[in-house]
């Protein structure tokens, strides 16, 4: 059975006072099911991620109980920022195998109000190795700053290249009424913002948000009964190279190279065929390094191209058209799912003021850990 994305939805994002982790899951799930034209009892597969604000060993079971459904297949996946793309890949495999007809993939967390910004930073720093990283005061921004410094050394990446990413994406977010960060941002502001982990400054780092998102992945014939807006899943791939910062095989070349190559081979496409890209941007350097590793730009050329407007809506690779994790919002695994929801909207022509004209193919990428776990998707207009 050919898998398609039959429904996509997200909740509000940002500071959502009084929000709860499970309520956000349910709100996103209900909206995605409505978008797909499905009733909850037509879902036979549920895939969830994880929560920092309300951790649980079996989050998908907690969600099923809360939402009031009893799917025949259910599992929770933890691959950091790669999770949302990995859920789509797993759902597609379940549909292809004939195990499920309609898989609900749902991610949410109330990180900002549930943990606070300091709490979220501290909780995330626990991904550092308990013996060989955390005693040294490693933070997640610091780990990515190690990548940024090495990319500057080897690839000629500059602070201006990184700032141009945050400025470009802020421009996109300003066209999205739901984006968390919509104030104007100039190059001067980005380049003079307070230092977090040198060379990464405030606007090089993603937001901390409350919010959720959900997708329905269906067999094409099941979807056809309920919607004419399904999006094709043309290709997918994964690569997992390490977990901890000290174990990175390279600080300038990452597993997205292999995950994207698998996805492009399955789709029978190349980077030149992609109309819109939604690529994980936990930090500005994350996006820049991935653009080069994936092959959208030759080594050392992504930064200058971005300064020239390559990632603008009318550029050669419109990228993170919703504003990304840097300006749209980042609520855990849902942050990666916002990228997929945006790709679906672009392919359906529903992206309103930020619509990329004639978008027929989309590349989506998620990475988790310290550029550790990678999953790439290629989606197409049905």
């Amino acid at each position, binding site marked *: 059975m050919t898998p398609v994305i039959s429904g996509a939805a997200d909740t509000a994002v940002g500071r959502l006072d009084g929000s709860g982790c499970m309520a956000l899951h349910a709100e996103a799930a209900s909206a995605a099911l409505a978008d797909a034209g499905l009733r909850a009892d037509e879902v036979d597969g549920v895939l969830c991620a994880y929560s920092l604000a309300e951790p649980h060993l079996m989050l998908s079971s907690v969600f099923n109980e809360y939402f009031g459904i009893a799917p025949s297949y259910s599992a929770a996946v933890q691959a950091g920022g790669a999770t949302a793309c990995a859920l789509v890949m797993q759902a597609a495999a379940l549909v292809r195998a004939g195990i499920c007809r309609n898989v609900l993939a749902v991610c949410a967390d109330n990180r900002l109000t549930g943990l606070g910004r300091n709490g979220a*930073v501290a909780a995330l720093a626990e991904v550092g190795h308990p013996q060989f990283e955390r005693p040294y005061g490693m933070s997640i921004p610091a780990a990515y700053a190690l990548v940024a410094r090495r990319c500057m050394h080897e690839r000629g990446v500059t602070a201006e290249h990184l700032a141009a990413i945050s400025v470009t994406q802020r421009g996109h977010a300003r066209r999205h009424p739901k984006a968390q960060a919509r104030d104007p941002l100039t190059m001067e502001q980005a380049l003079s913002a307070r230092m977090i982990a040198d060379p990464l400054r405030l606007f090089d780092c993603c937001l901390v948000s409350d919010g959720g998102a959900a997708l329905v992945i269906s067999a094409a014939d099941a979807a056809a009964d309920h919607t004419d807006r399904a999006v094709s899943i043309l290709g997918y791939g994964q690569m997992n190279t390490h977990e901890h910062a000290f174990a990175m095989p390279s600080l300038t070349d990452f597993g997205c190279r292999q995950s994207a190559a698998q996805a492009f081979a399955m789709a029978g496409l190349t980077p030149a065929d992609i109309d819109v890209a939604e690529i994980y941007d936990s930090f500005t350097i994350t996006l820049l390094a991935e653009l080069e590793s994936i092959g959208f730009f030759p080594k050392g050329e992504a930064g200058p191209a971005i300064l020239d407007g390559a990632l603008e809506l009318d550029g050669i690779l419109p990228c993170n058209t919703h504003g990304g994790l840097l300006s749209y919002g980042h609520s855990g695994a849902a942050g990666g799912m916002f990228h997929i929801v945006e790709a679906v909207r672009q392919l359906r022509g529903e992206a309103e003021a930020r619509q990329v004209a004639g978008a027929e193919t989309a590349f989506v990428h998620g990475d988790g850990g310290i550029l550790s776990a990678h999953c790439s998707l290629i989606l197409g207009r049905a």
Partner: protein
Amino acid sequence: MTATDPSPMKPVPLVTADTRAFWDACAEGALTFQRCAACGHVQFPPRPFCTECRAAGPGMERSAGLGTIHSFTIVHRAPTAAFKADTPYVLALVDFDEGFRLMVNLRGGPPSDARIGLRVRVLFEPLAGGGALPQVRPLVE
């Protein structure tokens, strides 16, 4: 851990069976790593098999303690309150000459001394509750 109220205590290495010999050596002022007797592969952190050829029991060797900074950052925003008083501090990945990599802090000078390619030497800082944490300082020839 309560995420909303980070402990003022810095995390200390919780020694496991895999790493006991490494930390015991640190307490005596020696930096150690593993080399596989079967294939020669060098690895860190210690574990009971070779990640290259899967042979059991790679041997522990003593490092000369000399290395080169592969990358570094100067941390201005601490991960928890426990590190706030230390900011700004250098977090670095150091490639030791024998072929293994450690994350450490650079000591013995201002953070602005840090640069990729800087030659460094290991030093050991005492840990609260016993033992010692390997760090580095610039190597002065």
